């Protein structure tokens, strides 16, 4: 009887892994399949890196990787810069209207992005930031802020209040206590938040599609979606580009899976 349930569990795990990883692995396999054998029956006769070389040879694809990196990194920095002090204050200081702020952040997290596309388009156009990477960072940071505030406030609350009190008695102003004691101690929380914001910014599609036209400034998601614009779909190359586009995130996820899970669930459970 015990063995049956164990067998059942093994099968369940196998099914789960197939479901989770199968599609992605299939894409990987496709990217290594010779063009001529795509859609054929059975395994490819041999694996080739041609599609990968082809994808990486495309200048605008390489640029898109760079653009995504820059935008995601900048977004993460901006979110942490704005979010960390705010979260600290929400956790430890008498903030007037804290309920309103948290409620407002919650509301923003529920906005459909399409709703702000039109006015943001016009504003960015006015400011000359349309079709620039900088023009993406501010909207990205804004929509990542609720998540940032959520996570960081809960992390700051978890730091024992006696630490803050000790810093105050030792002579710190609230800002000094934040800068010299709370911030260093909140390292893990900042790292988790940074990871989640980075993933969010890297994956964002709608704003990138709406606000950027020049091929050289596109981010990765947009580049992938437009890959075959010029000629007949190079399926293997598209597959290769997809895998390449995902690799940075995959590496981060595998390295920091514990942190990411903790962050995703902490943010949610505290909500």
């Amino acid at each position: 009887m015990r063995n049956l349930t164990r067998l059942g569990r093994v099968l369940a795990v196998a099914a789960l892994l197939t479901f989770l990883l199968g599609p992605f692995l299939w894409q990987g396999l496709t990217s290594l399949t010779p063009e001529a054998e795509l859609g054929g029956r059975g395994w490819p006769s041999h694996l080739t890196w041609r599609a990968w070389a082809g994808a990486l040879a495309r200048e605008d694809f390489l640029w898109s990787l760079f653009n995504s990196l820059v935008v995601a990194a900048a977004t993460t920095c901006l979110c942490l810069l704005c979010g960390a002090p705010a979260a600290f204050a929400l956790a430890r200081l008498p903030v007037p209207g804290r309920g309103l702020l948290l409620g407002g952040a919650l509301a923003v997290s529920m906005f459909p992005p399409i709703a702000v596309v039109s006015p943001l388009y016009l504003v960015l156009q006015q400011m000359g930031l349309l079709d620039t990477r900088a023009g993406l960072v501010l909207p990205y940071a804004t929509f990542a802020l609720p998540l940032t505030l959520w996570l960081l406030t809960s992390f700051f609350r978890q730091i024992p209040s006696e630490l803050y009190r000790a810093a105050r008695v030792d002579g710190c102003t609230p800002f000094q206590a934040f800068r010299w004691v709370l911030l260093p101690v909140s390292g893990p929380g900042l790292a988790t938040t940074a990871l989640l914001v980075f993933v969010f910014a890297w994956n964002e599609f709608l704003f990138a599609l709406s606000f950027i036209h020049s091929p050289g400034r596109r981010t990765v998601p947009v580049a992938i979606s437009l890959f075959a614009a010029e000629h007949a779909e190079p399926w293997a190359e598209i597959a290769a580009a997809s895998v390449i586009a995902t690799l940075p995130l995959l590496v981060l996820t595998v390295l920091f899976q514990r942190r990411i899970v903790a962050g995703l669930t902490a943010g949610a459970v505290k909500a």
Partner: protein
Amino acid sequence: MSLARRLRTERAQAILFVAPAVMVLVAVALVPILAALWLSFHRSILLFGERAFVGLDNYALLLRDTRFHAALLRTLYFAAVAVTIELLLALPIALLLHRAMPGRGFLRAAVLIPWAIPTVVSARIWGWLFNPDYGLLPRLLPASDVNWLGTPGYALHAAIVVDVWKTTPFVALLLLAGLQGIPEDLYRAARVDGAGRWTLLTRITLPLLMPAILLALLFRTLDALRVFDAIWVLTEGGPANTTETLSVYAYKTLLRAGNFGYGSAQSVVTFLVVMAVGVIYLRVLGAGREG
């Protein structure tokens, strides 16, 4: 320093700490919503650079626009089906992950992979799987002559598959967190009282998991109502607009047709629909908490 002055200073300092975040949120999120509302009261075609005040004309147009009604219903359908499937799949996954077993860390990392992959890439992956000429699935599935992405009716469900694949892991993680919050002692006591597996599940696990389930429902429903990425990459709203959801229709109106006035009206209504659903969920969640 007098007491009153100190209290005032501390308040001012607290405000300074939150000021950057508040300014960003207000400037880039709240103001644009109001601006979208303002735009929706105008007739504004980007190409012609004109803008004329037309009051509620755009909304009147919406009421008559069958394409919009279709998009609305389709979006609601999409959300309902996708979220239900995700929940039904996520629960067993969460239960599975909850058990201590060798390789749990690896399994958890695997669970995160679909979440980490950009939605656009997920859509590409499934688009490839569904591809009528080269795809794996048409060959494996019985109704193999159907071009999933090219057939009205089927295409929307292909999009649902993408959404389910990408977000079930996230829901599973939320439920897992909920499961981890249930004290072991409850199960032990119930087992001593003679409860079987099914009873444990329905009498203990599910009721205590309700807050996590409702929370997952809230997040996922809102996300599903706002869906854009997967659909755009998969079918761009086709074939024949049969996968067009609210966000997709609004996008086309705004940035393909350049019709900012009407597109803004669509956006505002989309916003109201999503927020309404959100508020309803929050009410239920709040009531559930007190209960």
